[in-house]
C-alpha cells in the first residue's frame, strides 16, 4: 500500500487520496490533526518545530493496513516538514531502500484582534461586524476589502473632516464617534436612544452576544480543521490591515463618505446624505454639494 497522509480518519467511506504533500496552516498553539495510513505496523516521525503525538487508530472492518492519528502542535512559526518513516518493526520487513512520506506544514501565528480599547481594535471589530463575511453567497474578497476601506473613510471623515455635522463641537476621538447617540421622545411619547452605529453605544463594553459574528470570524480564521479557514483568515487579515493602517486609503468620493447602512434596508439616511455606492453588503453615503459647501460650524476642516 502506498503510504499517505489523510485529513480525515478512514471510515466506512474510502478517501481515494494519495497525496503525501499538503500545505496546511497550523495555528499556534492550536493542535492540528492529520492521519497517516500505510501498511507499516509502526512508524518513526521526524518533525522540526513540531511536537507530534501519534497513536494507532482502529481500522474499519475489511481494511488492510494501519492508520495513525498524528496530533501536530507548532512550537514556532514558519515552514517545516513532517517526515514519517517505517518504524523498527516495519523497517525490518522492508528489503532495499526504506521509503518515507513527507508533509509540508506551515505554522502561522494565531490571528488575534488588537486590544478592544485601542482605535485599531475598535475599527477591526466594526469592520468584521458590518461587512459581509465569506459565508455569504455573493461574497468576494475584493468587495469586502473595498467596503472595509470605505468604512474606515466614514469613521475618519466623521472624526476629522466634518465632525460638526455629526453633533461634535470639537474633534472627537474615535470612541466618541462610535458611541455617539441621542435620546428623543417620539410622537407617541416613547423615549428612544438612537445610536449611530449598531452595538457600539457602550463600546468597549459590548457583550459577546452583540458582536457574536466578530468572534465567529476570528475563530474560523484560526480553525485549521475547517475548510473555510483560509477565506476567513484572508477576511480577518484584510480587516486588520485596514484597521492598523496609519492612514485610511484615499476617499473615493469628492465630498467624502459619511455613512453606511446595511444594503437592503428600505430607508436611506436622508437629508444631505446621498448614496454613493454599495460594497460588501453595505450602502455608503456621501454628502451633497450644499452640505459640502457649508461653513463648518465649529472649525472643522474640510
Amino acid at each position: 500500500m502506498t503510504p499517505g497522509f489523510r485529513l480525515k480518519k478512514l471510515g466506512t467511506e474510502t478517501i481515494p487520496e494519495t497525496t503525501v504533500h499538503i500545505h496546511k496552516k497550523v495555528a499556534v498553539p492550536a493542535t492540528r490533526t492529520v492521519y497517516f495510513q500505510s501498511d507499516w505496523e509502526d512508524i518513526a516521525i521526524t518533525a522540526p518545530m513540531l511536537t507530534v503525538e501519534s497513536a494507532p487508530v482502529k481500522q474499519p472492518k475489511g481494511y488492510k493496513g494501519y492508520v495513525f492519528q498524528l496530533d501536530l502542535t507548532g512550537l514556532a512559526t514558519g515552514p517545516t516538514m513532517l517526515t514519517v518513516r517505517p518504524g523498527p518493526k516495519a523497517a525490518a520487513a522492508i528489503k532495499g531502500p526504506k521509503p518515507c512520506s513527507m508533509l509540508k506544514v506551515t505554522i502561522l501565528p494565531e490571528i488575534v484582534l488588537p486590544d478592544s480599547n485601542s482605535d485599531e481594535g475598535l475599527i477591526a471589530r466594526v469592520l468584521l461586524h458590518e461587512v459581509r463575511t465569506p459565508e455569504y453567497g455573493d461574497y468576494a474578497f475584493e468587495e469586502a476589502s473595498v467596503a472595509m476601506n470605505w468604512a474606515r473613510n466614514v469613521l475618519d471623515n466623521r472624526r476629522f473632516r466634518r465632525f460638526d455635522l455629526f453633533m461634535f463641537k470639537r474633534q472627537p476621538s474615535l470612541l466618541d464617534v462610535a458611541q455617539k447617540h441621542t435620546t428623543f421622545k417620539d410622537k407617541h411619547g416613547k423615549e428612544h436612544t438612537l445610536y449611530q452605529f449598531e452595538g457600539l453605544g457602550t463600546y468597549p463594553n459590548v457583550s459577546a452576544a452583540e458582536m457574536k459574528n466578530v468572534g465567529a470570524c476570528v475563530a474560523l480564521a484560526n480553525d485549521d480543521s475547517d475548510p473555510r479557514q483560509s477565506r476567513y483568515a484572508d477576511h480577518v487579515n484584510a480587516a486588520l490591515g485596514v484597521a492598523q493602517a496609519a492612514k485610511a486609503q484615499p476617499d473615493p468620493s469628492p465630498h467624502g463618505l459619511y455613512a453606511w447602512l446595511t444594503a437592503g434596508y428600505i430607508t436611506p439616511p436622508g437629508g444631505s446624505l446621498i448614496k454613493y455606492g454599495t460594497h460588501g453588503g453595505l450602502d455608503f453615503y456621501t454628502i451633497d454639494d450644499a452640505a459640502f459647501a457649508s461653513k463648518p460650524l465649529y472649525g472643522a476642516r474640510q
Partner: protein
Amino acid sequence: MRLVPIRRPVLFLATLAMAATLCAEEKPQFQYFPISTVPDYPRSPEKHLAALVQRDGKTTINHFCVVGLRYDGGYTAWVYWKENNTITLWDPPADSDDPFTLLYSRRTLHLDKDVVPDEVDISLSNYMVHEEYVKGILGACETVGQKFVIRKQPQRKKQEKK
C-alpha cells in the same frame, strides 16, 4: 453657537448647514418573496431556526416567519421571531445547508427598541428601521412569508466524569 438638543442630526444638518430640501431621494423599490423560490436559501430552514432557538430561545414554543426581500441590486431575507420580538437579517448563504449566516447574522433588531415611528427619526443610525418598514415585513409574512414553529429541545446534561 450652541447646539440645542437635536433629535434629528440630518435635519439639523439640512437646515443649518445649507439650504437643501429634506429627503428628496426616492424610496428604493423592493419586493417580498418566499425564500423557497431562491436556491441560495435552504428549502427547509427548520434546522437553521432550531439552532437559533437552542442558542437564544427563551420559550419552549417559538414562532417564526421568514420573508425574502428583493431590492435594487440584490436580495436578502428577514426572520421574524415572535417570542423574542426580533427580526434578524438573513443574507443569502454560500452554503444553504450551513446555519452560520443566520446564527451569526450581522443585524438582529429588537422591535421594542430598534424601531422608530417615522423614517426621519432614523436620521444617522446605521441600523434602525421605522414602523412602516416593520409593518411591511410582518404584512409580507401573511402573504409570501413562510411560517415555522420550532420547539426548543431540553439541554442535554453533560455527563459527569467519574
